[in-house]
């Protein structure tokens, strides 16, 4: 009887341990940014400008049901179609001193497959940090690829940037950044 109970216990324990171990390894997940298109929009009474970067880098680490993400993009990688304007943008945003825009956010691992992601973003840019709460992104999951789109409602004043002027008229404060990214779990 004792032998039988020991054998039964072993039989139950081994699969349970294996299952728990599998869950633990699944929770420690790493995400990688595959493709990205980030586009800022600048408005001026005489100009409408879009600057695009495809050079964002991103990673995410999941642990204990929480995933921390980091996206970084070089300020100089944004292209508005005019080299002089891009250089002026780098100067205005202190891009030589602070070459990377960094965005950090945390999501629960359970929400990673949801069609809408509600993120609290911490954005470091131009030597300043701004927080944006409840920024929603739309997500489409196709196989292993997670396609995410949305808009970060950033403004010039959030980062204490002196708005550039043209003919003494400053640009509008709002600089929304359109986000289009494809992530996959490694």
């Amino acid at each position, binding site marked *: 009887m004792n032998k039988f109970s020991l054998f039964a216990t072993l039989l139950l324990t081994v699969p349970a341990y294996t299952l728990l171990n599998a869950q633990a390894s699944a929770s420690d997940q790493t995400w990688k940014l595959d493709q990205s298109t980030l586009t800022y929009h600048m408005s001026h009474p005489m100009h409408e400008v879009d600057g695009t970067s495809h050079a964002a880098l991103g990673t995410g680490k999941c642990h204990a049901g929480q995933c921390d*993400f980091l996206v*970084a993009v070089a300020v100089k990688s944004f292209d508005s179609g005019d*080299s*002089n304007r891009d250089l*002026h943008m780098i*100067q*205005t945003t202190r891009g030589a001193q*602070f070459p*990377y825009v*960094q965005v950090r956010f945390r999501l629960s691992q359970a929400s990673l497959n949801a069609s809408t992601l509600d993120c609290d973003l911490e954005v470091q840019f131009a030597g300043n940090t701004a927080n944006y709460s409840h920024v929603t992104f739309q997500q489409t999951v196709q196989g292993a690829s997670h396609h995410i789109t949305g808009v970060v409602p950033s403004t010039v004043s959030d980062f204490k940037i002196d708005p550039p002027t043209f003919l003494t008229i400053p640009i509008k404060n709002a600089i929304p950044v359109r986000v289009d990214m494809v992530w996959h779990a490694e």
Partner: protein
Amino acid sequence: MEIQGRTWAGVTRVLIGGLCFTILCAVPGRLAAQISQQQGIQVASSKAETLTLPDAPLPVVVTKSALNRGNTLSSGSSLLTHAQNQPPSNGPSLSDLGLSPADTEGSAARQALMDRRTHMLKIHQRLGLITVIPVAAACISSAGAPPEKGNYSDTTSRDIHVALGATAVAMYAATASYAIRAPRVSHEPARGGVKWHKYLIYIHAPGMVLTPILGAMAYNQISSGQKVHGIASAHGAVAAATAASYGAAILAVSWPIHIKF
């Protein structure tokens, strides 16, 4: 026989003298070349030594927040950048993205250079726009510059045109000087409107030199009671082309314009 001997002696003296002269001329030259070569090597080696010398240790500045995190920040201009690059939580850091500190480290010196460039180009832009006024005024006043019905004595309107033209050229030179002296921060080819802005320099810059020269020639011809003739008669056409290309250069950097209030 004696005469022949004297001749030979003279020739020999001349040859010896010439040889000495050649040696005297050539040796200092070679010596100077050798010395300069040696000096060059010495300078090069001293430069190499200077380049290979290790940097003096810089004072380490530790901020309060860095102390809290147990991180040490480097000194100088990159202090803020390093502070910026610290992850706020236990989340991923820039190094997890494959970026080295050299990639993410900013340069206050480069930022200062960019600030200086922008400052100078802003003055260039402002002066350029102000220069439109004397250029336009010179174009308008040109209507009264030619002598009316053979009246070569009345020079008032012509003098006004000359004064406005001279002002336009002087302000143009000042405007150009700010663009020329602005530090270059990128060696990539220009893209967009600024490319056309630069191309148009090849029209309005020679035009701004030629126009006053031709104008002065025309002025002298009129002052001496002659009709404007020869190359001076191109003054108006050159001025018009210059003013048009100048206006186009301003539009090029402002294009495309979408007026929306």
